[in-house]
């Protein structure tokens, strides 16, 4: 299993603040296979270039190069709110 954590309005789109993704240990997730595993409305929103991704608490410089698998926490981070 991998855990997708949804912040801000992405949690609304997903209907939850976390989404467990059942995954065999052998499967690698990349950006495209992650999106395919998510609800379509959420997946569509994720290509917004302002949305950042962190794997196990580390921000990815380039989310399209995502590599994750079972046991990883993938956080989807929309732009933070202003004052």
């Amino acid at each position, binding site marked *: 299993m991998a855990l997708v*954590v949804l*912040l*801000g*309005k992405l*949690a*609304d789109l997903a209907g939850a*603040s976390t989404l467990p993704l059942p995954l065999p240990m052998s499967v690698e997730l990349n950006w495209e296979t992650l999106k395919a595993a998510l609800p379509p409305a959420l997946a569509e929103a994720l290509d917004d270039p302002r949305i950042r991704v*962190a794997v*196990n*608490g580390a*921000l990815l410089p380039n989310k399209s190069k995502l590599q994750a698998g079972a046991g990883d*926490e993938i*956080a989807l*981070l*929309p*732009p*933070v*709110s*202003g*004052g």
Partner: protein
Amino acid sequence: MRDIRLLDRVFMPGMLIGPFTNANPGLGGVSTFVGEVRSDTGVEALELTHYEPLTLPGMHQLADRAFARFDLMGLLMVHRVGLMHPGEPIVCVSAAALHRRDAINAVDFCMDHLKSAAWFWKREKRDGEWHWIEPREQDHSDLSRWQA
């Protein structure tokens, strides 16, 4: 003296600033900013979400940058998370320094970066409905002041 915290309950800034001031003997000045949930805007409640693995380390990195940039003796940076109501403090930043310019500028710097670059997501409840708050242009111009 460095005190960086996320708090999920209501807090009284005076309870933090008194001990913080006392923890920095020999200081020349203490500058403090306290932000509260505004009550003039029809907002019934405010909710701040954070992502623990990024938010607290981000605040510590911001503190590192403030210590590197200004001549500080101490820095207090406390941010509420969770559900808040109008009149409750959201944020308290306090800087102690030998000279007032360092103290005042450090608070200004931390506030600009906390508001715009720290990992918080805010939503407001108005007329019973929740709305996410988007980034504001003002915040970007506040940040650009520090890039010279």
